[in-house]
């Protein structure tokens, strides 16, 4: 243990001691730097600011040539190498700015050179330092595809030194990304070596091996099937056994490896027993008070996300109760808080039974509390959790979520400095405003509607399109008074420009919003005609150049809705469909009718149906025009459309047209 007198120097003093010519003073200074910065982020930062890393790196560089000299038994040199490596490792440990500084200072290659020393302590120090750097995403990428690099990696894994072969595994975990790299590692026999560490290694080697294996398996079903094949023994069962190991970190890493295997190759690990086991192990790991417990909910999420069968099993295992129980503890580490909220979000993402369970526990406040947390990641996770829970149509219908306690903190997040928080809050609000009761005014009263309109003008396209999404849902089936207030806040001019926004997703949401505005009582159609028909003209313009089917669908439904009005409205739609008197150009309608997208075909046929509705005085004139444009010939080709909905509408239109005589 360092004595009490050692850590007394201030950073600047230590910096000048590091520059001393006396090796013993240098070593003591290095040791003191290391002792001061270990586990102390603030200290790391202050040393960083005064250039400590280049200084230590320089010391390492000056002494590293001696590593090659195998007769070097100079204790001082070895101590300098060990302490400088240890100090650099500490700077990098869990501190990205430190990693950055170490790499920038050129220390990285020199640390690798330490591995060639005949002195075990020097090798250890180098390997440990490099392992700490490789924990960070900022570590330089290792190029496995170069032959000599692969050979070097193999030599690391072959080493008897635990830190050195652990370094080999860390490099794989950090740098293996593409399937090409995965294959190269497989071809070089790396899996066999890792499996050896898995079965015969120490705790640290097993853990490192589990992480590396997961990296090599990820999204690569071919390698997984080779690993699980007969040639390499029965390694899959080794991993399964390790999921029951007595060390929590090993259990977690083994679970994560199995989850990667399962998500990549759904044929494996299908047994309901193993699925249930994984769920139980991960839920139990939540009890760990350290980093393992912080990471466990993320592993749980990756197991159940998008998979109803697993969510169902987890529901039976009381996952929701357990997650909420941990949430209730309070004072959670931000990473754990975020993880639990996201795990709950995944549990409630698809199944009403899960959402019902969650809501029945009456602890929504635990989630709304997180909306005001200091961490942006936690606030985002809370919004995502609310977004999942508010998919409950039953409860939306009952107006359960349109409550100030939920709405007000969410609306506050519209002004959050983090864009991802804003977008996540908009997501939750988009669902909540689908409210069928008369309580929508709560949202207006708390300023939410006005805020949404402001956000529709944001520089960020994701914010614009999500704000419009929320507004679209808000005006769905709303009374005219509410629609008027939204429209006067938005203005026809802004809405028209959003319809023609550079971003397709914004165009789509703006058109869908218009579609909803003009549905309902017949007076609502007038919104499309405000300011000399700005909006109607924008719709027509956008449909000419619709870049994706969804834009066509929303735009055509908007026109369809206008065309369900009176003669004036129907003629106005015709003008958008056929802008020029002598229209030689193929109308976009023809293109839409021939689209592969059945919804687009359906929307277009509905518009035609409305335009040729026999009870309208001008229907025959419109029919004639559509016929001349070849629309009816096209529709005759669609009487047996593969989509039943389209087929039925086409037949209705053609049947309707019979009322006008021969066609």
């Amino acid at each position, binding site marked *: 243990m360092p004595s009490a007198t050692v850590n007394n120097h201030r950073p600047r003093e230590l910096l000048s001691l590091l520059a001393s010519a006396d090796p013993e003073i240098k070593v003591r200074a290095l040791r003191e730097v290391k002792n001061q910065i270990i586990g102390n982020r603030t200290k790391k930062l202050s040393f960083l600011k005064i250039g400590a890393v280049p200084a230590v790196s320089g010391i390492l560089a000056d002494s590293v040539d001696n590593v090659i000299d195998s007769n070097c038994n100079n204790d001082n040199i070895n101590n300098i190498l060990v302490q400088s490596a240890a100090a650099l490792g500490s700077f990098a440990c869990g501190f990205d700015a430190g990693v950055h500084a170490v790499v920038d200072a050129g220390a990285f290659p020199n640390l690798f050179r330490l591995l060639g020393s005949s002195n075990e302590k020097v090798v250890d120090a180098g390997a440990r330092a490099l392992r700490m750097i490789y924990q960070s995403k900022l570590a330089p990428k290792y190029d496995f595809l170069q032959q000599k690099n692969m050979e070097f990696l193999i030599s690391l894994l072959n080493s008897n030194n635990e830190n050195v072969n652990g370094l080999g595994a860390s490099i794989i975990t950090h740098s293996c990304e593409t399937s090409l790299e995965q294959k190269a590692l497989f071809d070089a026999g790396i899996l066999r070596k890792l499996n050896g560490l898995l079965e015969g290694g120490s705790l640290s080697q097993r853990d490192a091996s589990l992480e590396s294996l997961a990296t090599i398996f990820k999204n690569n079903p071919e390698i997984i099937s080779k690993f699980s094949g007969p040639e390499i023994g029965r390694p899959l069962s080794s991993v399964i056994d390790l999921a029951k190991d007595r060390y929590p970190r090993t259990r977690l890493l083994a679970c994560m490896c199995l989850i990667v295997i399962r998500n990549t190759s759904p044929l494996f690990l299908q047994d309901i027993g193993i699925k249930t086991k994984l769920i139980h192990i991960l839920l139990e790991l939540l009890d760990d008070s350290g980093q393992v417990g912080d990471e466990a909910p993320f592993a749980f999420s990756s197991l159940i*996300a998008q998979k109803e069968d697993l969510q169902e099993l987890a529901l039976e295992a009381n996952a929701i109760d357990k997650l909420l129980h941990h949430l209730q503890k309070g004072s959670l580490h931000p990473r754990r808080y975020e993880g639990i909220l*996201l795990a709950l*979000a*995944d549990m409630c*993402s*698809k199944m*009403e039974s899960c959402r019902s369970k969650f809501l029945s526990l009456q602890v929504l406040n635990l989630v709304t509390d997180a909306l005001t947390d200091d961490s942006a990641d936690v606030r985002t996770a809370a919004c*995502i959790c609310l*977004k999942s829970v*508010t*998919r409950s*149509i*039953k409860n*939306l*219908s009952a107006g359960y979520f349109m409550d100030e306690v939920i709405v007000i903190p969410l609306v506050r997040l519209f002004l959050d400095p983090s864009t991802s928080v804003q977008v996540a809050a908009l*997501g*939750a609000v*988009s*669902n909540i405003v*689908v409210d*069928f009761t008369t309580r929508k005014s709560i949202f207006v009263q708390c300023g939410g509607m006005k805020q949404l309109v402001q956000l529709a003008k944001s520089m960020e396209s994701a914010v614009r399109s999500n704000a419009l*999404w929320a507004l*679209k*849902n808000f005006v*769905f*089936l709303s009374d005219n008074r509410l629609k008027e207030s939204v429209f006067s806040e938005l203005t026809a001019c802004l809405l028209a420009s959003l319809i023609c926004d550079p971003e397709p997703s914004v165009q789509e949401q703006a058109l*869908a919003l218009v*579609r*909803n505005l*003009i*549905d*309902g*009582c*017949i007076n609502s159609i007038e919104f499309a005609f405000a300011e000399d028909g700005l909006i109607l003209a924008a719709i027509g313009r956008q449909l000419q150049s619709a870049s994706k089917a969804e834009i066509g*669908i929303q735009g055509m*439904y908007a026109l*369809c*809705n206008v*065309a*369900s*009005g*009176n003669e004036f409205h*129907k003629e106005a739609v015709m003008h958008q469909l056929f802008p020029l008197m002598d229209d030689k150009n193929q109308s976009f309608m023809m293109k839409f009718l021939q689209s592969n997208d*059945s*919804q687009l075909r*359906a*929307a277009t046929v*509905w518009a035609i*149906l*409305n*335009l040729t*509705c026999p*009870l309208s005085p001008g229907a025959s004139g419109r029919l004639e025009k559509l016929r001349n444009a070849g629309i009816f010939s096209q529709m005759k080709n669609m009487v047996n459309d593969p*989509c*039943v*909905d*389209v087929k*039925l509408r086409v*037949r*209705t239109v053609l049947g309707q047209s019979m009322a006008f005589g021969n066609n």
Partner: protein
Amino acid sequence: MPVRVAEISAPSQVSGTISRHTSPPACTLLSVGQAFSGTQNVSSIQKEEAWRVNVRIQGCDLEHGYLCGTMEALNVPMADTPVVTFWEGEIVDTKNYTFFTGKWDASPEDDKRHWTKFPSFLPLLSQVEIDGGKSLDLSNCPYIFMRWKEQYFVNVGTDCGLTIAGFYYVCFSCSDGSINGFYYDPNSSPFQKLELKSTNEGRSGFSFSSYELQ
């Protein structure tokens, strides 16, 4: 991470949530926001009576065979105002639900007795008798069969003198949006008929709005 769920009124879901190929087709007329109006015949031996009924679809999740909405009954003698209930529907899609109810005091015999009152059901009867219709391919069927169960009263108390203990066997026509149904409740008059048509709410044509859940 959770991803976006699309609950749109137009047929078929966003790719990735398309129902299996034997399920009934999605239909624009049976989608969120759509409204229907007509009557429910509540005649008993004592007297002839019919209530005007308005229905609105509020939720639709084809992947899970789920539908929900409100039903508004007008000119109900015991009530001062129209009575509104919230109902949830099961779509007979051979995947989530079959023609056999399996609950709500309805036996397979009760099921058959009711379904056969719909002419459009008759071609399906023989298969239903074998396996409840599990192996039927309904993907080209222009009718959608459902059960609607009222869950609670929205605007009146449970002491209003009305019951929502039973449920409706429902047949929806995709071509014109008409709905026929029979109310089943062992404690009420049998075969009370529900007849609804798709409404245009004063418009000269059809109008569609939608919402999308995130």
